[in-house]
Structures are given as C-alpha cells and as structure tokens.
C-alpha cells in the first residue's frame, strides 16, 4: 500500500513538473539527485565536474519530461540520461580513447579477497582505470548493459567493448591482489 501511494505521489509530481511547476521539479530533483551524482561520479573522476554533468542531465530531464512514456521506471530513465551526459562530457574533453586491439579472451585466475571492499575503495580502484576501460567496465558491471548496447552507446564495435572490459578486469584484478597482499602484510 505504501509503495502504491508512493508511486501515485510520484505520478502526481511528474504531472505537475510537466506543467512547469517549479516546486514539483525541485522535489523530483531532491529525490533523485544523490543517486544521479553517484552515477556521474562513476564516469567522471572530479566531483565538481561530475556535479556539472548531473546539473546538465537534470536540465535535460525537465526539458524532455514530455518524452517519458511511463513504460519503465522514472529512475531508470533519468539514469540513462545521466550516463549519456557523462559519456558526452568525456568525449567532448577527449578523455576517452578506446583501444581497438583484439585480445584473446582467456580466462584468468580469479583473485578472491577475504574481506569486502568499501564502496569508496572500489571507487578509488575504478578511478585508477584509464577512461576507456572505466567506461565500459562501469556500464557493464555497475549498470548492467550488454556489450551490444555498450557498443551502440559509445559508437564502438562489440568486440572493442569486450576487449576493453577484459583489460579493465585484468587491471582491477592486479590492483586488488596487490591491495590484498598489502593488507596481509600489515596484518
């Protein structure tokens, strides 16, 4: 019942926001802004630039609210806009370079950590990735897109997407294993 009422509230808020009600738009912003800033932060290293990307994303959300067809969740729709905005920002600033080398996708030894990593630590590890790797990695692992979808979003081939992800995974595994060794050494 609570979920239904929340859904009805959101539906009412969306209707008002569509008509240009600034209060309704602000309420939607306050509800989704923290998550969306986190999404933008996954792609853009600098927090301030990530916030700029989020701001531009929300402007596009409210200007294009009439295109939301209520077919999926509103949050998912906003998330997509934020991702596209982050990718566009990185392309504009020429941070993204995709390595087109084809690599044999050989399964490598998986490293298991005894203790789980904090979200902030994971973020640090992801930030250490080159931009091209990071983008594919985040889209595949965090957002759950398939390589075909990632390829169309980033305007690359599906095989490039796969190779980028493979490289990113190898890089992270090396970093995690060195981190684990460092922790073992400390203990």
């Amino acid at each position, binding site marked *: 019942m609570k979920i239904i009422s929340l859904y009805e509230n959101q539906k009412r808020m969306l209707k008002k926001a569509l008509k240009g009600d600034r209060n309704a738009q602000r309420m939607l912003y306050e509800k989704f802004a923290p998550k969306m*800033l986190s999404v933008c932060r996954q792609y853009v290293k600098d927090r301030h630039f990530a*916030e700029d990307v989020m701001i531009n994303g929300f402007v596009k959300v409210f200007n294009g609210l009439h295109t939301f067809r209520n077919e999926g969740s509103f949050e998912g729709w906003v998330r997509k806009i934020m991702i596209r905005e982050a990718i566009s920002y990185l392309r504009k600033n020429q941070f993204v370079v995709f390595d087109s080398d084809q690599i044999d996708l050989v399964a490598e030894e998986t490293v298991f950590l005894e203790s789980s990593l904090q979200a902030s630590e994971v973020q640090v590890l992801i930030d250490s990735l080159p931009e091209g790797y990071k983008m594919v990695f985040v889209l595949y692992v965090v957002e759950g897109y398939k390589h075909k979808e990632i390829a169309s979003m980033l305007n690359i081939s599906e095989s490039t997407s796969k190779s980028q992800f493979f490289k990113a995974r190898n890089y992270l595994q090396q970093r995690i294993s060195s981190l684990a060794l460092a922790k073992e050494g400390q203990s």
Partner: protein
Amino acid sequence: MYERSITPSENAWSKIEDQLGSSSQTAKRGYWAYGIAAGFIGILFISIFFLTQPVAEVIPTQEVVKTTDNTSDIPNTLEIQESLKDDFENTGDLVQKDPLQENTQLPNDVLVQNMVQPKFLDEKIVEDFVALEKVDTKIAEVMTQVTILEQTQGAVSDATVDSLLRTAQKELLRERIIGDSQAVDALALLSDVEDELNRSLRDQLFEKLKDGYVKVRSAIAYRNE
C-alpha cells in the same frame, strides 16, 4: 555501487533553475513572436479588405432658403396662358422673341423645405424626374400657346410652332444652366453651346432640304399649269 549516493552541493538546484528559467523564457519569447506575427498579418488582411471596398459619396445636407415674396407653388396653366397671351399680343413677332433678353423674373415662389440629400444614385433619379417634369410643363405651355393662336389667328404655320418650341427649349436650357442655386452650371452651359453648334448645322441642312423641296414643288406646279 549501483545504490551508492553522494549529496550534491547546495547551489546545484539554483543552477538548474537558472537554466530552466532561461529556456522557458526563450520558449515564451518564441510564442510571443508567433503571436505578434499572426496579429500583424491579420491587421494587414483587414486593412486590404477595407481599402478595396468601394466608398459611396455622402452628400451633406442642404437647406433651401425660403423667400419671403411669394410662397405659392409654381403658377398654374391659366396664369401661364394669360401672361403669354399678353406677350404675343404686344410683340406680334414670335420668331425673334428671345426670352433671355427680356427682363424676366424668375418665379419667386420656391418650395420651402429642408431636405436631406439622398445618396448619389437616388439624387440622380430625382434630378432626371424633375427635368422630365419641366419638359412636360413646357410642352403643355407650347400646346396652350398654339391653341390660343389657332383661336385668335386661325391656322398656325410650322414656323410659328417651331419658334414656340425653340423658345421653350431656350427657357429650359436657361433654367438648367443657372439652376436652383442661382449659380451657373458649367457643364450645362457647355452642353448648351454644343447644342447651338449642332443646331446651326442642323438648321443649315434643314434649310437646304426645304429649299430643294420648295423648288421641286414649284417646278411640278408650273409643269402642271
């Protein structure tokens, strides 16, 4: 990572609001521009429509001033007969009579009325009607004169009748030229001059034909004798 959240800075919403506000202003400005353009086009069409409409002339009202001398209507037929009878008896020569040279008096009895002038089409019809009435009156006068002459002098010659008709015509033309307002109507004067010229040509032709006819008649009469 999917559910992680980071609190944005406090001025983030104000930046979004500024961008939204400027975009809505441009949209409104766009609508305003369309509205102004549509209004301007509408005014243009309306002005073209009104300018192409024919404008009817409106004639202002005129007051006909009443004269104090005589308030009766136009004199009746009996009075005309008596006045003309006196003239004919005195002069004895109807052909040379020129009413323009006489010290005639225009009838002082003028209808008293304040008329609201009709529109241009109705006025033209009224003018024509009045002119026809005057012609009828003159014809009646001429017929009366001929009747009187027949009673007094017996047979009336063609020349006499012709001279009576010319006199009546001159009077009508004079009334038309001078008009009710005692001002000379230039167009009427011009038509009178043209008529005079046509008439002189007509008279010459008529005289020539008449001479020819008389000669032929005389020749036949002599031959028969």
